[in-house]
């Protein structure tokens, strides 16, 4: 009885230990991969058309989901915000509420989550399938480094697209709030825009929002290319790599958002 418990405990510890070692090893591998990709950056930018093509695939093709989501998030935010604000007679501050929420938080975070599931998963699946069908091996055997030719352009395509998408998300969100707040509910147009203009600080709010979205873009793109490159070259391997990209990216965005917010807005009160 006691023996069995001891064995079970030892097994559990062993599993925990080997899991921890595997996780640290994988993190180290991902870091080395990141350094290798960054080192290939000049090669990726030397042939700019490769990176621009990925900006099109990750950025332009994500526009519909980003713009529509931004519009609806802004409209819902206006409805909910108005409901609370008007209780205190502060309904003219709706513009401030909506714009600050979007620029500081919702724009980068929600756009990042959408970007991870729309573009990140596609990047992982594409690189994973290229690996499974030996296209990456073929490239290597043709003396072309897949990191420079396939991975780096996709990474930078994502890094460049993400802040632009987040900015468009926030813009459409503000427009959606305008439609609901001013056009539908009837808040004064001048108060809506004027209060917003007075309250939103370029350096403090907008630049910090852009920094956040750039960090999220880097994290999501890195996770996406790494998971694709590291995928087991089978149908099952590619599908689980794609799932991991979405899960890890989402968690990374939320965790990084907390850390960045602590540093950026701690003097707020």
């Amino acid at each position, binding site marked *: 009885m006691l023996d069995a418990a001891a064995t079970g405990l030892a097994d559990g510890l062993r599993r925990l230990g080997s899991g921890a070692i595997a996780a640290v090893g994988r993190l180290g591998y991902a870091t080395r991969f990141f350094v290798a990709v960054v080192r290939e950056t000049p090669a990726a930018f030397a042939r700019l058309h490769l990176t621009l093509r990925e900006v099109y695939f990750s950025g332009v093709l994500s526009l519909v989901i980003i713009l529509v989501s931004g519009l609806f998030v802004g409209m819902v935010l206006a409805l909910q915000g108005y409901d609370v604000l008007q209780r205190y007679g502060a309904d003219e501050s709706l513009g401030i509420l909506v714009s600050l929420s979007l620029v500081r938080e919702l724009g980068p975070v929600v756009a990042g989550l959408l970007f991870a599931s729309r573009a990140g998963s596609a990047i992982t699946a594409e690189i994973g399938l290229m690996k499974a069908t*030996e*296209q990456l*091996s*073929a490239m*290597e*055997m043709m*003396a*072309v480094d897949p990191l420079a030719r396939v991975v780096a352009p996709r990474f930078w395509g994502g890094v460049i697209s993400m802040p632009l998408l987040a900015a468009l998300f926030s813009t459409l969100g503000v427009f959606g709030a305008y439609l609901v707040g001013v056009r539908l509910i009837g808040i004064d147009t001048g108060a809506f825009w004027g209060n917003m203009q007075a309250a939103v600080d370029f350096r403090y709010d907008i630049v910090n929002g852009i920094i956040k979205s750039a960090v999220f873009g880097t994290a999501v793109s890195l996770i996406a290319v790494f998971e694709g490159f590291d995928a087991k070259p089978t149908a099952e391997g590619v599908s689980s790599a794609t799932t991991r990209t979405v899960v890890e990216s989402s968690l990374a965005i939320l965790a990084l958002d907390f850390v960045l917010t602590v540093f950026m807005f701690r003097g707020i009160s």
Partner: protein
Amino acid sequence: MSDPSAPAYVTAAAQPDIAVELADVTFAYDRRPVLAGISMVIPRGKVVAIMGGSGCGKTTILRLIGGQLKPQVGRVMVAGQSVPDLDRDELYALRRKFGMLFQFGALFTDMSVYENIAFALREHTDLPEEIVRDLVLMKLHAVGLRGAARLMPSELSGGMARRVALARAIALDPMLVMYDEPFAGLDPISLGVVGQLIRQLNDALGITSIVVTHDVYESLKIVDYLYFVSEGAIIAQGTAADVRASGDAFVRQFVDGEPDGPVPFHYPASPYRAELFARA
């Protein structure tokens, strides 16, 4: 007179010009041994087949020659250079002289047939676009698919994809072309076409070809020499005529396609009767 350790073929043909040489190569993935002390010589200008059942380490040999894997023990020499000792730049320089045809073609699915063949030319040369175009069309014409230049890989049949991959493999006029299962999954006509192309391109372009395959019938028609690999070791070798006349039990089983023999039909298991009645 002749070196007794060298394969008979090399000494007999008095062929000093060696493209690829493997000496006592041992390789294991983690702890799973794949190759156990393999030695082979591939003379320049010849078509040599490496044959054996699935999973016997044939493809591993190609990856060792291409420098994608490093042997734990032994020497891999290509064109007089020791492949495992090359640094990245030297390895890439060597690979520019290689062509490789992967098992299912491994064409780049996001590029047209034309772009696939132009890929290496554009990556490694500064040729003007008109010359790239002419070279691509010449390579495609050689495999009979000039008319398919604008198609995407998804629009090709298996045999056509294999021929496009072949055209891509010879795009940079390599000295050595490696074929990984070029005959797998092809209909009889495509099979004959691909086999003939391998032979003709080899002779016309003066390249050396290594064909990894388990298709005995097709290989015997086109190759100069064959190595039989089983469980990580070379168990027989010879010219096509030697192989046809061979009395070796393994070679006979392989050539005649017998289900049972030195390569057993049954995966190792406990005695049948004992297992069936184990629960009774």
